[in-house]
Each structure stands twice: as structure tokens, then as C-alpha cells.
């Protein structure tokens, strides 16, 4: 069973995770930025 450019499903999902994690990191940064001075405010510990 293949997907995403012919790669096996498991590999495609793994690569997708590697792409999504930086995007999530960016969204968390945007939340931190909007809530104050940029310090970690969500999903973290100050």
C-alpha cells in the first residue's frame, strides 16, 4: 500500500509528522507572542 509520491503509508505519515511539528512550533510561538512579551505561555513551563 502506497501513498504520498509512492512511499509506503507509514513512511509518508512519519514524514508528515516531521513537517507538522515545525508548524505546531510556529503556532505556539504566535500564541506566546500574542499573549505577551514572547515568553512561553502555553504547552510549556516558565
Amino acid at each position, binding site marked *: 500500500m502506497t501513498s504520498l509520491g509512492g512511499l509506503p503509508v*507509514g513512511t509518508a505519515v512519519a514524514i508528515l509528522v516531521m*513537517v507538522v*511539528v515545525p508548524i*505546531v*512550533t*510556529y503556532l505556539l510561538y504566535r500564541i506566546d507572542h500574542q499573549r505577551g*512579551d514572547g515568553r512561553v505561555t502555553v504547552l510549556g*513551563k*516558565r
Partner: protein
Amino acid sequence: MSEAQLQATFGLFVVVLLSIGLYFFFTTETKRLSDYMLADRDVGTVPIAISEVTAVASGWTFFAWVGIGFTVGMSGLWFSITMVLIVLFLYRFVAPRFRRTSEALGSQTVVDHLASTFDDHRLGPVIRLVGTVTIVVFLMSYIGAQIIAIGEAMDVGLGIPYTTAILIGGLAVAFYTTLGGFNASVTAHLLMGSLVIVAAILVPIGMVLEIGGWSAFVSEASAVDPALLTMTGGDAGTALLIAVLSWVTFAAGAIGQPHGLMRFQAIRSERIISRASVIAVAFQSLRLTVPLIMGAAGRVLYDGADVHHENVAMHAIIDIFPSWLAGLLLAGIIGAILSTSDSMMIVTSADVTRFYEEHLNPDATERELILFGRGVVLAAALIGIALAYVRPGTIFDIIEFAFVGLGASLGMPLAAVVIWEKTTAEGVFATIIVGLLGSVGNLYLFADYFPILVWPVAIATLVLVSVATYDGRGQYADERTVPTD
């Protein structure tokens, strides 16, 4: 392709590196040890993020990790996913408080932080001693692996004999680090990190195009080895479980690479940690995914050829790209290795110097300490060169041993000290010992299960000993180590 052109491009790169060291030696007023070791805790977002990744990117990105892509294929992504999640965890859960408490304590490294946290405890000095021994054991191995990679890269890529190459590479990095300290290290990382990003994008594209495009790559890689592009690596049942656990526990070492964590202590402000995490996580994702594709593509291009699996990227760069670009890409790759080496030398130097200051010569002046620190950097480079000459294992083998050992013995106690207030000096001390001996024991007595066994033992030690010795007053009880914002 002209070997002379390649050597000229790389030679220019080495000159730039040495100039960076000289620049900071002559222009920076390095009067205090913290100026030399942590650039006076004033490093900005981009340099700190790029430097944090480049500090650990090392020979494994373009050598060991490409070799894994070549031999076992994309199943290495189990490692990549685990590591990138740990990096995110470090930035959001560990870095803010670590930065703050590090400044309050005046700590300069992970070992220094652990020892300083328990400064008033009878085990404080012992934690510094065993921590420093642990740093020397694992980081010297790690530096040796980096210099092997430097030798391979210059040998294969530039035609410089291996022995000459390890001498040139080892001494060049020692020279600019000795002179410029952390400032030179971070600046050089910015340059090298940028080249690594360029290489990480161009090289796999060039290799896949050389095969005939993405579809050709997928079909030919699957034809060479049907398991190469799968997440199982061809394993099933218990073998698959052990393989996945091996990758995940290997990646767990990311929690405590002292040369990377040191960047959190040097960052200008806690307010830029979240922003820096975006760059660092994106860079990590790129450099942990792309080399596996390069390795798999290399399997198609070089299957059956007389090419060592860890040198595939070097051969591909020379075979595919024009010489000026190949020279630049090789400089980036060798630069990544140099940058890891300089970070490790700085950490080793900082810890040995702090030990010297605390226990051997408490009256030493700042000038004497800086001089001593520079001497340790040079000694670390020479030992690394000697190890590279002996070559005790493959680059991957040595990196795996050191990476896991550092994470289990130092990284986990540091994370615990920062986020779990019931962590005790006894728990930290026991975990460093168990992490050090457990890593060696797991490797030599149960090699088939390395590094799966060391983690549960180290975690159990940390939790059980801390709970058993916790007296209701955590290390943060006096607020000294956790200043308010």
C-alpha cells in the same frame, strides 16, 4: 573535476574560520570566564537557534545518518520523530527556567548547573567530580568521532590523506575555538549552519534527479531493497519492537547534549526562547529527514560500488555537482562537523576549568582561568585527533554511545532539576553514576539491546532515590535558584 579547485574552496573556508577566531581574540574584551564560555549570555535568536542545532548536527547528519539511510533506510525516521519532539519539549519546558536559574546561579554548563544547584549539599562537590568525569569520557569519544568524520570528508572529498586531514581539521577547530571561545563558536556556527541548510536541500535534490526523478527513485530504491523505504525496515514481531525501541531510546539522548543545552544558558533573554524554537525545530526536522533520503538514493546510485556507506554523501557531491559548488557544499558539511567539535571542546573546557577553579586552585584569577580553559580546548583537540587516528569504531557507533550516555547521565538529571522540584542531590548523583556505568555496561554486556536497557534503569534510579531522600524541601526551597521574572 579539479581536486585543486575543491581544495582551494575549502582552504578559503578554513581561512574564514581562523579569521573568526582571530577577530574575537583581538576585538572582544574577554576578561571573565563567562565571556569566553557563554559570550556574556548575550546571544540573539537566530545565532542561538542555528548554533544549537549545528552544535549537535555533527558528523552524523551527512555521514552516520546518510549511512543509516543507505543500510536500513527510512525506518530511521523513528529516531527523527522522537528527537524532534524532545527538542520541542526542551525549548518549551526546560529552556526558560534553565536560562533563568543558570544566570541566578552563575552556572556555565550542565555539570556546573547540577553542582551549583546543590552547592550547599555535601554531594555538591562530588556531583561536579563525577559529572566532569562523565563529560570527559563521553565528549572525548564524541570529539574523536567528529574528527574521524572530518578526516573522511577531507580524504574522500578533497583528496587529502586521512592522517593529514585529521591533523588539519582537528587543529583548525582547536585554533579558532581556543582564540575566540564561545563567541567564535556561535559566529562560525551561523556560517556553517547556513551552508548545512543549503547542502541539506541541494544534495538530496541532486541525487534524486541523478536517478531520474522522484518516481524513479522510489521504484529503484524499492527494487534494490523492498524494505528500504518502509518504517519496518523489513522487521516484524519482536525484532521490529526491539528495532523501534532502539531508535526511540537512542533519540532520547537528545534530552541532554551538554554542548546544545549550553546555548540555553547563553541566550540573551527568556523572551526569545519561543521564537528561537521555531528555527531550531524546523532545522532539526530538515536535517533529521533529508539524510535518510540521501542514503536511500545513494543505495540506488552506489549499490555494489566500492563506497563506504557513511561516505555516500561525499561521493555524490563530487560526482553530481560542479567543482565550485561541490567545494562549497563540502565546506558546509565539514563545517557542521567542526562546529560540533568546537562546541564539545568548549563544554569540556568549561567543566574541567570549573573543577580546577573549585577544587584545585580556588585563588586562580580570571585571566589564569581563561588561559587554563584555552589549554583544555587544545588538549581536547589533541586527544580527539589521537582517537581519530586509532579509530575505535564507526562514526555511528561512537556517536550512539556518547549521545545516549550524555543524555542518560547528565541530560535527564538536568531536566529533572529544572522541572521536578523533588529532585534531590542523592538522586542526581546516583543517576550520573548509573548513566555512566549503565551506558558502558549496556553496550558491552548486552550489545543487542543497546541503548534500550540504560534508560529504564537510569529513570528508576532518579525517581526512586529522589523520592527516598526527599525531605520536603526541594532544591528550590530557598528561592535562590528560581528568581522571579
